[in-house]
Structures are given as C-alpha cells and as structure tokens.
C-alpha cells in the first residue's frame, strides 16, 4: 500500500522519514493541533506550496528546465476560480467551470510555450519564460474590468465553505467544525493526492526518460526519445499541477490578486523552496515549502528580537531587520547550489 502510494520512491533516510511524518501529521491534524486563524492559514499555505514547489521540481530537478513562468500558471488557476466566482456567482458549478477553463488554458499555453521554445538552450528558455510571465502579470493588472487590476478580486464561495457555516452543533476536540475546516481539508487532501500523483509521474517510465534527457539529450534522441515532446509534456504536467495549486489557494483565500499569485516575488520563493529543500527529490518540496512558509511567518518575529538586540551597531540591525529575512535565505540558497545541490533531503539521505 505504502509502496503503491509512494510509487516505490521511499524517503531512504530515517531522519527524513521522521520529518516527513511529522509534517504529514502536523498538516493532517492542523485544525486541532494548532487552532487559530493564523496557524490554519499557515497550514493551508504549506499544503498549497508543497504542491506548487513539487510541480516546479518536476521541471527544474527532474527535467533540467528553468522556467520563470510557473507563477503564471499558478495565477491562471487562482484567477480561474476568482473570475468564475465573481461573474457566475458562488456556486459549485461556477467553481468547477472556472477550474476546468483555467486548467485548459494552462495546458494550451504551456504546450504552446514548450513547442515554441523548448528546443533551445536552458538560458534562452529561462529568459523567454521570464518575459512571457511578466507580460502576463501586467496583462492581469491592466484588464482591471475583468481581473480587478492591482486590487485583485474578492469573492464569495458556496455556503458550505464559509466560516459562518457550522457543521456540527458541538465543538470537536475543542474546535468548532465550520466551513473553514471543510475548506482546509479540501485543500489538504487535494494537495496530498496531487503530490502523490507527481511522485508517480517522476517514478514512471516517462519520469525516467526525463532524467535521461536531462543527463544527455543527444543520446536520448538517439535511442528514440524525441526530447522536445518529452520536455513539452513535462512542462504541461507541471503547469497543470501549478494551476491546481492556484485553484486551491484561491479557494482558501477567497481572494486572488497579482501579489498573492502572479508576482515575481513568489517565483523567487518557489526557487528558494525547491533548492533549499532539494532539487530532483520531490520530498525536497515538502521540506522546503514547510520550512519556508514557517520561516516567512515566524522567523521575522525571531529576527525582530535579534535586530533590537543589535541596536546601536552600524548596519547590523539593518541586516537582521525582520524585513531582511530573505537576505539570509538567499545566502542559504547560494550555499545550497554550491555545497549541497540535493538540498536538505540530500543531506539527510547522505548521512545514512
């Protein structure tokens, strides 16, 4: 059973397995273990980003493609729900329709980009995706009648998902079972299922071909694999998964805007998570996303203490200022690329 679920790709490290189980348990019981709006927000964000980062790992770690358009697909998913819910009203039907349209758009766009530019060198592709993604972000803010522009869209969801909806009369384990809990578990289970699906993809015959192409695409062609097709399919699968993550995020936030889904800052966050967690491992996405989101939320509190303590010393307070937390992650990122390309997961596996 476990073997089937994990597609035969085990953590291969006791430490890593323990860490993953802890994260799984934490997320599965988050509403009860960490009650409170802020911590549930953190848990939901972790779920969404695990999926988002895992889908990026399929591209970066397994296929060796650097794309800067991943947030674009994330955004398409989020805006799909947002626009459908705004225009067609808060019904299940409109959510399904919005999701399907968003997924179709992502599939089409990713195949188009792939076919047009995946033949070329890594750098060329990275530059083109960066240009296309920024164009898309600007488009979203320009078409304000449709997308809400810079302000984004806030919308209602079906009754079942609203905080005001109580499902049980009495609280369960001291927690009131309302629409937010339902939303959370939709996010959690969908993200978990899709993560396992991605784990399956990288361990499928297809996934092995991707790694072969990453290693030596000339030879992969010579033994009969047309690399542009494989890269395009990988690009498309990753785009679909990113859009799914966007859909979940929009469901959770009941809001979609450029800053939460399309901005280049999120692209940088994804890069940080995948590299620090461990490229080409899938589990790196779980570890990286969890650590990052927790750091984003709680590290700043810690840094505030440090910053106050360093008051009076020139520049140092600025460097450990809570707003500068990315500085330290950036340095960790550079060290990861040089010293441990397989990230935290690689480190943990290496110890065994």
């Amino acid at each position: 059973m476990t073997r089937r679920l994990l597609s035969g790709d085990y953590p291969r490290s006791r430490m890593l397995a323990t860490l993953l189980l802890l994260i799984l348990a934490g997320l599965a019981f988050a509403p009860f273990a960490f009650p409170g709006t802020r911590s549930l927000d953190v848990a939901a964000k972790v779920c969404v980003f695990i999926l988002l980062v895992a889908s990026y790992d399929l591209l970066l770690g397994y296929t060796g493609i650097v794309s800067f358009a991943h947030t674009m697909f994330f955004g398409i998913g989020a805006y799909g729900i947002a626009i459908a819910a705004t225009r067609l009203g808060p019904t299940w039907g409109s959510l399904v329709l919005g999701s399907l349209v968003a997924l179709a758009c992502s599939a089409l766009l990713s195949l188009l980009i792939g076919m047009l530019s995946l033949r070329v060198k890594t750098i060329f592709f990275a530059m083109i995706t960066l240009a296309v993604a920024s164009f898309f972000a600007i488009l979203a803010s320009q078409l304000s009648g449709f997308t809400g522009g810079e302000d984004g869209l806030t919308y209602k969801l079906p009754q079942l998902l609203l905080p005001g909806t109580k499902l049980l009369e009495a609280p369960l384990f001291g927690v009131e079972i309302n629409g937010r809990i339902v939303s959370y578990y939709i996010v959690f289970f969908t993200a978990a299922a899709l993560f396992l699906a991605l784990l399956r993809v990288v361990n499928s015959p297809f996934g092995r071909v991707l790694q072969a192409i990453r290693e030596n695409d000339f030879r992969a062609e010579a033994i009969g694999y047309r690399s542009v097709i494989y890269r395009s399919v990988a690009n498309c699968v990753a785009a679909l998964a990113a859009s799914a993550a966007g859909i979940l995020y929009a469901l959770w936030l009941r809001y979609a805007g450029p800053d939460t889904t399309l901005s280049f800052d999120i692209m940088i966050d994804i890069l940080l998570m995948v590299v620090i967690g461990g490229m080409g491992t899938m589990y790196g996405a779980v570890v990286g996303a969890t650590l990052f989101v927790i750091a984003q939320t709680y590290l700043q509190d810690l840094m505030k203490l440090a910053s106050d303590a360093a008051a009076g010393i020139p520049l140092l307070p600025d460097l450990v200022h809570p707003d500068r937390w990315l500085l330290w992650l950036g340095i960790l990122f550079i060290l990861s690329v040089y010293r441990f390309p397989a990230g935290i997961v690689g480190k943990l596996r290496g110890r065994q």
Partner: protein
Amino acid sequence: MSPEKDELPGAVLDKSPLALIPVIALVALPLIPSLPTWVTLTVAGLAMGMMIFIMASGLTLVFGLMDVMNFAHGAFITIGAFVATSVLLPLAGWTRADSLWMNLAAMLLAVLAAMAVTGAIGLAFERVIIKPVYGQHLKQILITMGGLIVAEQLILAIWGPDMIALPKPVTLRGSFIFGDIVIEKYRVLAVLVGLAVFAAMFLVLNRTRVGLLIRAGVEDSEMVESLGYRIRRVFIGVFAAGSALAGLGGVMWALYQETVTSAMGMHVMILIFIVIIIGGLGSVGGCFIGSLLVGLMANYVGFLAPKIALGSNILLMVLILLWRPQGLYPVAKR
C-alpha cells in the same frame, strides 16, 4: 547560421535586420495623426532604445564572451541608480544651478561613482558567485538568481525600501521646440550617451589589440590561451566593464524616470531580456538594433494604445523568433 558571420558592431554583414528600424518607423507614420507627433515619438523611442542598449550591452557581451548569463544584472542597474541618488542629492547645489556645465559635472560625478561601484561589485560577483559555475547553465541561472535575491536585500538594507525622488538637473529639464516638434532635452543627452557607448565599444572591439583578443576569445578562448594570452583576465575585465555599463544605464534610467525604487532593475530586466533575445544572445550589434526596435515600438504603441505597450514588445519578440528562431544575429558557437 554560417559560422563565418561576424557578430560585432559595424562588421555586421547581414543587412536585413537593420532595415527593420526604418520599416517600423514608416509603418507607424500613417497611423500617427501628425508628423510632429511622429517625430517626437521617434526621437523618444530612439532615446529609450539607447538607454536600454547601455544597460543591455554589457550583459550580452559577457554572454557572448564567457557564456555566462547574469540574471542579477538588474540589481547592478538598481545599485547604479541608488549610487546616483547618494551623489546627486547632496550635490543639489550643482544640479539646481542654472548652469549646464555645473549640471553635467554633477551628472559626471554620479556616473563615475555608479560605474566604479557597480564595476567593483561586478568584479567581486564574478570571482565569488560565477567563477565556480562556468559552463553549467542551469547552475548559473540559479546562482545568479541567488545573487539577485541577496543584492536586492542589501540594497533595501542600505537605501531603505522607500522610493527616492531624483529630479533631473535644471538645464536638462524641458524641451527643444521646433515648430510643432517637441524634443525633450534629456532624451537628446540619452541618444548622445548611447551613441558614445556604441562607438566606444565599436572602436575598442575593432581597433585595439584588446578588442582583437575579445573577438578571438568569443570564438575560441582555448586557442587564444594557446597563443599565450591570459584570456581569463580579459574576461574578468569585460565582466567588470559590463557591470559598470549597467551602473551607467542605471543612472541614465533613474534620471529619465526621476524616481528610484529597489524594483526598478527587475522591471527593466524584462525589456533587456527581450532586447537580447531579439538581437541574438551574445551579439552586440543585434542588441543595438533590438534596443532601438523595442524603444520605438514602446513609444509608438504607448501613444496609440497605451494598455498594450509591453505586450507589443512581447509580440515583436515572438514575431522575430518566428522569423529567426535564434534572434536577429545568432552567434554560432559552442
């Protein structure tokens, strides 16, 4: 893609991409209601193109020579702009004086300071960040992205997160007016500086021994070493020079916009990438033409349909890639 094609400015054999500039200008002519407006927009477009060229040329030259694409180049532009604020704001007396020479002297100081700082950072960047990942494109992208993250945070730590206003020096404000034609003075300066940079690059590359070394190094650096030259030193020099040009571009762009933000480098990076893709990765001549095309396109479309200005540049990029999948002047090597 014949291998003997020369990729350097002036020695460009293939003329058809050059013709794109007048073609775009002529296509725009009937669409724009009046001739003076067209002239104004054309000059504005060329000026914008020149500034983009200053910022992009260093990046593409470094790629052509060292096969390194520095995704943190935008941060150098931002740093150049912030250094300009640190120099020009205390020199308010010079910039507010109604004397062209005082104004230019202040600008020159700012430019020199910006170029010195970004050049030095470039040098350190090459040694610490890029040197270990030569030839590994994927790691290069990642590592320079890491450099970008760190650099942006350092900028925020030093100059703060707020937008800084940077007014143009007094005598460079306003416009020359010829009848109905209005030409901003600063744009004239931008065109002059851009032409000077292009001419300087052309002369260095084609008329000096260092230029000969660089051109040979772009083709086959191993052979240059086999002839007894320490090409690495030339490479590092070019990297520092490319970074210094980013600093110069940052000053020019900041004064053009009259505001400096920590995100400005990233914004122009998009334009710079479009320009480099259009021109062909590593080609300085292609970069020059690409910059002018993008500058003109942005101004014409910005006037006709402001909402799709950036989209028009993406469209231009896609069209050119459909015509020439590796850009206007593909650099055939490696």
